[in-house]
């Protein structure tokens, strides 16, 4: 029997979780303005900022969470320590993407607008409020859906963590659902999940969508066609002004927008093409002074790192290296296993995405039903419903398939659920932003569905798919992390062979050295993947698949 108390406590917990999401997003956006500005204006800062953010962007942060937790709990401790650890984790999950977007927006601000603020000698604050902050808004809006979903995912999963023999948790919907599930309080858990889903839906449709719609006015395109002709009657009151604005908004949504690109698509598409089309290069030339400063800063950082390693060599680094030396075969084998899972899940997501997206792009009715669902579904964190989804896999299905096969299936399904929405969504944005004229040509030439797919839709969706891949793979890792090792009913632990499972295990048994060793390997792995895979893929997307004029916001 669902009591009002359960609903209220679920609602409060969901709001607490949402507040964390909102706070971390805000902090990311605000810090990004200043860092992005500093990087765009100073060659020295840019040279540090770019490689660091671009590498960290594709890091599956969740895998480093145990280390973060150990740090915060040992240094700060208590509820505050755990709270800060959780917030910090979410911050690192969403911040890079937002920072890069803001930096790129500031870096590529129209020269003439910058000239205007300099010409009229605007103060530093005026420059920020009139120019540098507004130009970042379309990119923030374009990423907002993914950032929101990511933040929610990580926050929900990190609200309860076991470290050694102790379990730490903060008040939030993730902790609530996990707690009720492990106690076998099914009705409560499902109620809490429903409350969360409703709240997410409300946020997506009443906060994020209007935000994106509003953000459209911040895009700079001096040559856009006039949208309304004729003088409007002067509005005399604030109330009437806002009323007419809302009516305009509704009218636009009802009539015009159906015929053009949906707002989210427009904003995301803008983000992707902004990223590919006018991706700024680092300043090519540094003055002598700047070179000296850069070398000085670089040497200082190197010296600090060297000193750090030297001073903690005996206590930290040596044990880590010994641990790696003793276990490297296991670690590499598990890393390989997890990459294999990532590959399977990514391929499956793309395979599912292609027909769904093609249907959505070519059949408006399918699109009208699926798209809002997709936007909403993408934001409901798998981590919240994992405890419930897992139940049949450790009971009914396990008796049929055997426990290990059943758990493997669960891992793949959860990783798929953490990934598929993003892949579907990114590909859809890609296909949707293919210029109308190309579809007309394809229809005019009577191309078969197969040819339309292979010659137009799939290549056209490439840039969006590829740019999205770096972050979707991060989500896949997140999915693996939560599903490879989890506490089921009555606190019973289930795990499969896998890298993140072993990390979780080390966390649970308090093997800090092993944990640090695995984090180090993962860090190296991430940097290598970033250097050799993502950069090449991005370059490919830019070189081969970019369509001129594919998107105008």
């Amino acid at each position, binding site marked *: 029997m669902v009591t009002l108390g359960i609903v209220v406590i679920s609602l409060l917990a969901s709001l607490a979780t949402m507040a964390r999401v909102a706070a971390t997003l805000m902090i990311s956006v605000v810090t990004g303005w200043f860092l992005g500005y500093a990087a765009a204006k100073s060659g020295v800062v840019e040279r540090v900022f770019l490689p660091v953010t671009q590498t960290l962007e594709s890091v599956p942060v969740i895998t480093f969470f145990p280390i973060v937790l150990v740090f915060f709990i040992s240094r700060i401790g208590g509820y505050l320590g755990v709270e800060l650890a959780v917030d910090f984790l979410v911050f690192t999950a969403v911040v890079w993407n937002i920072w890069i977007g803001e930096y790129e927006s500031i870096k590529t601000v129209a020269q*003439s607008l910058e*000239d*205007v603020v300099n010409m009229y000698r605007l103060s530093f604050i005026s420059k920020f409020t009139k120019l540098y902050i507004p130009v970042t808004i379309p990119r923030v809006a374009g990423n907002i859906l993914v950032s929101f979903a990511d933040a929610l995912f990580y926050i929900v999963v990190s609200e309860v963590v076991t470290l050694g023999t102790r379990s730490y948790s903060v008040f939030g919907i993730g902790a609530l659902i996990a707690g009720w599930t492990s106690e076998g309080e099914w009705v409560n858990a499902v109620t809490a999940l429903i409350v969360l889903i409703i709240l997410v839906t409300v946020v997506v449709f009443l906060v994020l969508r209007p935000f994106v719609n509003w953000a459209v006015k911040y895009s700079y395109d001096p040559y856009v066609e006039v949208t309304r002709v004729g003088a409007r009657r*002067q509005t005399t009151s604030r109330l009437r002004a806002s009323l007419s604005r809302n009516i305009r908004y509704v009218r636009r949504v009802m009539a015009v927008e159906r015929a053009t690109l949906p707002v989210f698509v427009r904003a995301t598409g803008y983000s992707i093409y902004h990223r590919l089309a006018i991706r700024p290069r680092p300043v*090519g030339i540094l003055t002598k002074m700047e070179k000296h400063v850069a070398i000085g800063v670089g040497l200082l950082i190197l010296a600090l790192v060297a000193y750090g390693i030297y001073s903690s060599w005996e206590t930290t680094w040596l044990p880590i290296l010994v641990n790696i030396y003793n276990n490297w075969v296991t670690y590499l084998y598990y890393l390989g296993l997890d990459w294999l899972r990532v590959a399977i899940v990514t391929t499956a997501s793309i395979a599912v995405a292609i027909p769904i997206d093609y249907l959505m792009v070519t059949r408006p009715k399918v699109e009208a039903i699926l798209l809002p669902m997709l936007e909403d579904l993408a934001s409901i964190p798998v981590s919240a419903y994992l405890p419930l989804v897992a139940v049949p896999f450790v009971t009914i299905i396990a008796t049929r398939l055997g426990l290990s096969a059943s758990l493997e299936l669960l891992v793949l399904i959860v990783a798929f659920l953490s990934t598929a929405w993003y892949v579907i969504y990114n590909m859809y944005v890609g296909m949707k932003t293919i210029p109308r004229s190309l579809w007309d040509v394809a229809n005019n030439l009577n191309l078969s569905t197969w040819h339309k797919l292979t010659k137009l839709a799939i290549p056209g969706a490439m840039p969006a798919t590829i740019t999205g891949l770096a972050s979707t793979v991060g989500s896949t890792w997140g999915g693996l992390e939560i599903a490879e090792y989890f506490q089921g009913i009555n606190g019973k632990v289930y795990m499969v062979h896998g890298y993140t499972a072993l990390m979780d295990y080390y966390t649970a048994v308090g093997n800090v050295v092993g944990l640090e060793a695995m984090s180090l390997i993962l860090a190296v792995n991430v940097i290598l993947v970033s250097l050799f895979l993502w950069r090449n893929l991005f370059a490919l997307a830019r070189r081969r698949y970019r369509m001129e004029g594919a998107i105008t916001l």
Partner: protein
Amino acid sequence: MDISFSYRTERGPLHVLRNVSFTVYEKQYVSIVAPTGTGKTTLLRIIVGLRKPDSGKVLLMGEEVRGPTPKISMIFQDFALFPWLTALENVEVALLHKRLSKDERIKLARRYLELVGLGAFENYYPRELSGGMKQRVAIARALAAQPVLLLMDEPFTNLDAITAEGLKSEIYNMVFNEESTVKAIVMVSHNLEEVIELSDRVIILGGRPATVISDVSIDLPRPRSPRDKEFQDYLDLLYGEISKSMELAGIAKT
């Protein structure tokens, strides 16, 4: 002024302007004409104080221009309006550096919007305005700064022919108006007909790095019509000078 300028590039300095020098007198409408890529916009940005020349200096009424000053205002090819600000707020940007109260600022901005004929559109955002209206807002903003010298970087290029024609016939009166503080205009253009229609003097840049090739006074009564014979004579003269400058650029390349 006597300006030289080069860009720092990965292949060493690229010399763009060499000893460019000319004087603009009061009540003059001066046009700078040159082929694309000659460095016209760069020259304007140097004059307005947004870039520093390698050598030489810009003098405004005997005083050196060392950085952006409200006495020089510029109108841009792409209008450079802030899409997130209304027409009125865009004009206000030019007044922010003055320590005016908000009411005074709005009053002043409104006056200039009315001067360019957009009094009824102050709450419109740039995207809700036509190209011609956008350029009018940009003109109002430039005038609101109360400059002595007004610079215009190909102000009619992004307008359709009919709108451009209308604005051209009005701009002279808008700028040299009793409410305006502008004493002289420097416009950059590559449309020779427009240049003859509007200017008192035409300065032709050419060569690589560019330098002043020719300085032609246009002595025709206003309003001017391209159908007049004298107009056509000036056109022929300018075409001749331009081809000379193109040849110079060709020689510089080889």
